[in-house]
């Protein structure tokens, strides 16, 4: 009798363990897949509004999530504008007036280049893995792919502006297909979709990201990767204010 019970418990334990990955592990896998290491990319950003839309092209270099440099390459009016992020600080260089401006924290919630992204989104001080408590809510299908639906509540002292984040991560490839951001009053602020899943730079990724703010009718911002290079190499002085002016 005792033997059967203990074997029973042991088996049960095995089942529980093999079921799995905790919500946190799922998120970790997604994060590693998408943003690990050094990344060089060409992107196209489209700002869509009810009466008009605008497109920009840019190049981006990133080392993990601590260092990044973005250069606008089109249209002509904006060409040459660069943004540099070093850990928690951000700079902006404007070639038409030959000025480098350090962006103060007060500017972080302002729109980046007129899009629906905020400056803060680029600076991204928080980690989806470390700064939240994760809870698996279940599974849902998005665009024919089965996804884990995970609720993330930020830790007390985490540098996160959201009250709650719900993310859908695909079960097969750990791709982030949808994310909803809620403010502290539990109101939906925006939704981010990962679409056009393709292989690029050697990995399978959603290559098109669509950000739709919740309270503006007909507004959205679309970011598409045109090319991606993982594990790129950078010179030690690449992420510097001097390089902001020289990068091409």
């Amino acid at each position, binding site marked *: 009798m005792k033997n059967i019970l203990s074997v029973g418990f042991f088996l049960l334990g095995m089942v529980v363990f093999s079921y799995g990955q905790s919500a946190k592990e799922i998120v970790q896998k997604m994060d590693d897949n998408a943003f690990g290491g050094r990344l060089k990319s060409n992107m196209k950003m489209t*700002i869509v*509004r009810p009466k*008009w839309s*605008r497109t920009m092209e840019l190049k981006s270099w990133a080392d993990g999530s601590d260092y990044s440099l973005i250069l606008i390459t089109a249209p002509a*009016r*904006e060409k040459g*504008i660069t943004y540099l992020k070093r850990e928690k600080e951000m700079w902006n260089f*404007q070639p*038409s*007036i*030959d*000025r480098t*401006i350090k962006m103060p924290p007060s500017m972080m919630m302002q*729109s980046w*280049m*007129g*899009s629906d992204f905020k400056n803060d989104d680029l600076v991204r001080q928080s980690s989806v893995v470390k700064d939240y408590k994760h809870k698996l809510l279940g599974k849902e299908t998005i665009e024919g792919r089965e996804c884990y639906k995970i609720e993330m509540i930020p830790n007390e002292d985490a540098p996160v502006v959201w009250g709650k984040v719900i993310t859908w991560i695909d079960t097969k490839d750990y791709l982030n297909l949808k994310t909803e951001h809620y403010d502290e009053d539990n109101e939906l602020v925006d939704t981010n979709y990962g679409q056009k899943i393709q292989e690029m730079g050697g990995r399978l990724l959603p290559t098109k990201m669509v950000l739709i703010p919740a309270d503006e009718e007909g507004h959205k911002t679309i970011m598409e990767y045109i090319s991606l290079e993982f594990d790129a190499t950078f010179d030690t002085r690449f992420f510097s204010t001097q390089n902001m002016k020289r990068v091409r």
Partner: protein
Amino acid sequence: MILKIAWRNIWRNKRRTAITAASIFFAVFFSVIMGAINRGMFDKMIDDSVNFYTGYAQVTGEGYWEERFLEKSFELSPELISNIEASPGVEGFAPRLESYALASVETITKSALVVGVDPEKEDALTGLSQRIVAGTYLNKEKDAVVLGEGLAEKLKLGIGDTIVLISQGYRGVNAAGKYPVKGIVSFGAPDMSAKIIYMPLKTAQWFYGATELVTTVVLDIPNKYAAEKAVNSLNTTLDTAKTYDVLGWQEMMPEIMEMKSMKESSNVIVMFILYFIISFGVFGVILMMTKERQREFGVLLSIGMKRKQLAIITWIETMFLGLLGATIGIVISYALVYYIYLNPIPITGDMAKAYADFGIEAKMCVSVDWDIFYSQAITVMLITTILALYPCIQILKMKPIEAMRA
């Protein structure tokens, strides 16, 4: 017949008539002059404020005035222009593209109001070129700017220096540019002078990424009466439901209207005091007149004249005097006011300097609006009518024998 008797009674004693009429004349004269000056000064103030910047009326994009977003700018289409030019009261127009920007020189940064203008049209409307105190006025071919004196001082800029401007443009594009300073203007109002940057319209349109767009069309209108006509006309010819707004100066400068009502209320108090003093003056004369004629009244009553009739005749006499004084008062004060209207009195000395600092011309102006004249005359007549009752009451109470012994 009563009227004839009253009339003859007046002219029997010319001196008494003259004195009584004179006191009423002065009452009317002073209150009219004061009213004319107050109204005139006020109209001038409105005129100056309006012509200095906002104009008597503007056409803007629908919903623009509240928050002044660049998104509400519009194109100056030929159809809009022809509608504006066809409006009665409109003598011309000046288009503008206005928005905010950060202005910077080396380490100093200040917020500024950038106004893109058509240099000639703007000058025709506001006389901007006359306000240049250094350098030269805007040239539409050159991408050079003209700063307000206060701003130039804060940024420590002189002619030929470069000013850097940064802002968010139309539809969120990046707005950044540097421009040479070619002129400095001085305004009476210090807060305008500390923020304003004028540049040619095309330069501003490029800077904000708003090609061919304007935020407002300021209408060149000669005076506030024409303004009303123009606004009414444009409200019918333009699509004010969805595309445009037509704003009159009262909507654009509610502070002036508030100041005007405040001033008018305080004027009413002063007028009230004036009338009070005047009433005493007139009453004094009527009192004197009554006492003087006591014997006369006593005799008339004792030979059989009915009290009521005598009272009525006396009352009519006083009314005649009132009318006489008021009429002469109006005629002379009108003549004087009209003269000053055509030749405003220049203000000199320290007062002149104070006016110049505010950008208002140092002149004392008057208004020749009709209502000033007849409203004062009516008020004085009313006072006279009431005071004229005093002798009547005396007559009704009089004891003829005592009166004859006076």
